[in-house]
């Protein structure tokens, strides 16, 4: 039971996901500062009477448009009032308005979103339609128009704004809930006998909580800006000081009191910026969580950055097409450490041979294959070692030089047929374009070539397939198209990364036949990555068994199946269930 051995699995990681999010948030200085500023602004507004140096409403004729720095620290406004005191008091109505908008938007949006997503049906249709209607309305124009009805009552306007923002919450909650609703763990809860209310409370609200916080901060920011705008054009409450109202005053005194527009502008700008940064901080913290929780734990150790070793390339035998030696692949993490996933792999693929690279998930087999192509995902790099194609070290080539190797000398067959075809382009175009680029063929010549290739890979009606989009063909056919693409520029080497894993067994058998036939016909060298020993037995001449970033055994296929040497190979082959004893049918009498 090695998956239970304490050393076998990295059961590290933070003890709780939730704490992880909070922890990550607290480690983000920008987000923490933003949270502190928002808190400070709220406190200042609440305790404005204590904080403000003077009265926000007392006018002194001698202080009209007074310059900053005197008795009034930030100067006097157009009516001779203290700008600083007004600024402090103005936060109240502004924040209250923003709060009201968020509460109204959230209450309407969350409830309707939950109901619409969870119970679907007509309510979902109607609510979705209403949301589409409301969300397209230009907010300020509507609020300006409604001033005729509402009058100078900014809080009512902000509540209306909340209604207009509610579709954002509706859509968010609805989409999240639908996503969660289809998660298997919700199905499992239902089968466990949980009622709807409990499922919503336990499984669903938990998931939408954080996105709701993010959206609330974003909407608070937007609400502050809209409110200031309304007050600025004179649709606010003239009796109460507000940041927008102060800007209106600044605008009226633009020529005489140019100092007036900066303080309220900065107050708005900083508050809004902090709400946005707060939202970004929560999002970043969550995304960090996402990548940790969703992906399988990487089964590799963290290593110190390896020194690229420049030992001389070994003598390359004549028949070797691809020679990988001492390959080390690492990923740079956020904190700039390097996690090594392949620790020095040596591998050879000869012309006219199919070499299997077999291992369990996380063994580094795909990483090895992608390094040969120079197409490691972001952050991945060859730390040291050589990848020689016909004696030329690919690891030393520039991206531009590598481009002349890809397609022309190495073809690539990916795992998932559907996601490897561009959904926006016709299949013909996707085949013709690389041939025109790499082989300099004319459009018509490339088309003719593509048709014959498609016919070769077993597609009966090439013109129809070429004029189709990827979503119009089946997975098996898509894999044939990708194989045709891989050989279209006559490469000598094929890299096939789990080429049949996503396919049904009957299709898998046909695709393996095709790969074998093409390899014989063209004398190709093939590096075939797979986890399936059946596939290895079917097509490979030689096989390399990989475990934890190292090759543990590499021999001719027949030999390795007949007489595995390495204990891990023996374990793997012993785990295959093909030869397991059959269970006899239950006897009719035994059954109660």
């Amino acid at each position, binding site marked *: 039971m090695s998956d*239970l051995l304490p050393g076998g699995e990295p059961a*590290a990681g933070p003890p709780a996901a939730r704490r992880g999010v909070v922890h990550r948030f607290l480690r983000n200085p920008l987000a923490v500062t933003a949270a502190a500023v928002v808190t400070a602004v709220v406190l200042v507004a609440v305790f404005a009477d204590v904080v403000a140096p003077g009265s926000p409403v007392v006018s002194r004729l001698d202080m009209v448009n007074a310059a900053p720095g005197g008795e009034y620290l930030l100067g006097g406004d157009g009516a001779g009032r203290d700008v600083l005191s007004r600024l402090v008091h103005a936060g109240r109505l502004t924040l209250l308005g923003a709060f009201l908008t968020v509460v109204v938007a959230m209450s309407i949006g969350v409830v309707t979103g939950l109901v619409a997503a969870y119970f679907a049906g007509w309510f979902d249709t109607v609510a979705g339609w209403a949301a589409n209607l409301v969300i397209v309305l230009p907010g300020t124009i509507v609020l300006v128009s409604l001033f005729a009805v509402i009058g100078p009552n900014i809080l009512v306007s902000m509540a209306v704004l909340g209604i207009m923002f509610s579709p954002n919450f509706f859509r968010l909650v609805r989409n999240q809930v639908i996503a969660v609703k289809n998660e*298997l763990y919700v199905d499992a809860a239902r089968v466990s006998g949980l009622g709807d209310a409990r499922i919503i409370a336990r499984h669903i609200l938990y998931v939408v909580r954080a996105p709701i916080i993010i959206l609330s901060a974003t909407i608070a920011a937007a609400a502050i800006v809209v409110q200031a705008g309304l007050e600025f054009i004179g649709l606010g409450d003239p009796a109460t000081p507000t940041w927008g109202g102060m800007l209106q005053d600044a605008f009226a005194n633009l020529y005489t009191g140019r100092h007036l527009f900066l303080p309220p502008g900065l107050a708005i700008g900083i508050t809004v910026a902090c709400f946005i940064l707060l939202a970004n901080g929560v999002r970043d913290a969550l995304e960090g969580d996402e990548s940790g929780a*969703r992906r*399988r734990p990487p089964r590799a150790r963290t290593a110190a950055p390896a020194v690229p070793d420049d030992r001389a390339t070994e003598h390359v035998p004549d028949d070797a097409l691809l020679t990988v030696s001492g390959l080390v692949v690492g990923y740079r993490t956020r904190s700039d450490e390097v996690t090594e996933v392949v620790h020095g792999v040596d591998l050879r693929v000869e012309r006219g041979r199919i070499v299997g690279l077999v291992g369990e998930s996380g063994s580094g087999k795909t990483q090895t294959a992608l390094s040969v192509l120079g197409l490691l995902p972001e952050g991945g790099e060859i730390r040291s070692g050589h990848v020689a194609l016909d004696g030329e070290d690919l690891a030393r080539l520039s991206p531009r030089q590598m481009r002349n190797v890809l397609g022309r000398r190495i073809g690539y067959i990916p795992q998932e047929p559907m996601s490897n075809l561009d959904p926006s382009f016709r299949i013909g175009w996707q085949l013709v374009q690389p041939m025109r680029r790499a082989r300099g063929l004319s459009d018509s010549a490339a088309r003719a070539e593509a048709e014959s290739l498609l016919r070769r890979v077993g597609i009966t009606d090439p013109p129809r397939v070429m004029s189709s989009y990827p979503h119009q063909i089946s997975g098996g056919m898509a894999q044939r198209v990708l194989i045709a693409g891989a050989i279209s520029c006559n490469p000598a080497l094929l890299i096939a990364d789990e080429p049949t894993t996503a396919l049904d067994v009957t299709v898998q058998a046909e695709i393996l036949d095709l790969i074998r036939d093409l390899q014989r016909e063209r004398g190709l060298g093939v590096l075939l990555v797979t986890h399936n020993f*059946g596939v290895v037995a079917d097509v490979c001449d030689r096989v390399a068994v990989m475990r934890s970033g190292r090759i543990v055994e590499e021999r001719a296929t027949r030999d390795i199946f007949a007489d595995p040497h390495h204990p891990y190979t023996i374990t*793997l082959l012993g785990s295959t*269930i*093909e030869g397991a004893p059959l*269970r006899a049918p239950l006897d009719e009498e035994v059954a109660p």
Partner: protein
Amino acid sequence: MTGRILEVDDLVVEYPGRGFRARPFRALHDVSLHIRPGETLGLVGESGSGKTTLGRAVLGLAPVTAGSIRLDGREIGTLSRRDRRRLSQDLQVVFQDPYTSLNPVMSVGDILAEPLRAQGMSRAEAGERIRGLLDQVNLPADAGNRLPREFSGGQRQRVAIARALAIDPRLIVCDEPVSALDLTTQARVLTLFREIQERTGVAYLFISHDLAVVRAISHRVAVMHRGRLVEQGPAAVVTENPSDPYTQRLLLSAPVPDPVEQERRREERHRLARARPESELAS
């Protein structure tokens, strides 16, 4: 007692078509099968064959258009949500993907307590039971305080199995429960399934696309193709001497980890394909 824990007769499942007046999509055509207590029925088929739909219909997660599903002689295909909930005592599930079938933010203990509490068990009783369950699936006793992400795929699937076992069900629907697992883990989880069955007498409806997996765990095997059941019988017969041409093709298509045997099977498959052109097989 009928001697049959599950009976499915002439089951039809249709999903409404997309768009106005679109024709409904028929995922299952008149499917009939049964499972006896303590028995494993393996249900094998390729993608789109309807095998998962059948499992979901039994669980009440897919619409039953016609036909009947009886659990212990009681019709369950047309139960209300409320009545369905009581069924959970007899009927449980283990899903394919151990990464999405456990709520990532709930501790393993909470996950296991959920079905127990739903049955009205007290917190203390549930805690006691959870310790027993973890032991039953060979997980350490402290696993209850940890989150699913701290476990490997195989361990997570053990948690899912423990959840299914929590309230002593009589039938567990296993939907591709080992497909997402590595080879070595796969074998161990299958062994666990067998051990639990021998100990508790629970019955399995074991769904998989992999004939080898189904063969290793099942007493009887049923083969699905395009929404229909094409062959059903003892595992030895269906997985070694199938009579249906589709089952034959399925059997020969799966490569075996033995180069010599695989070459023989490949040739046999080619011979069969030449004898019976694709179009005939597919019809």
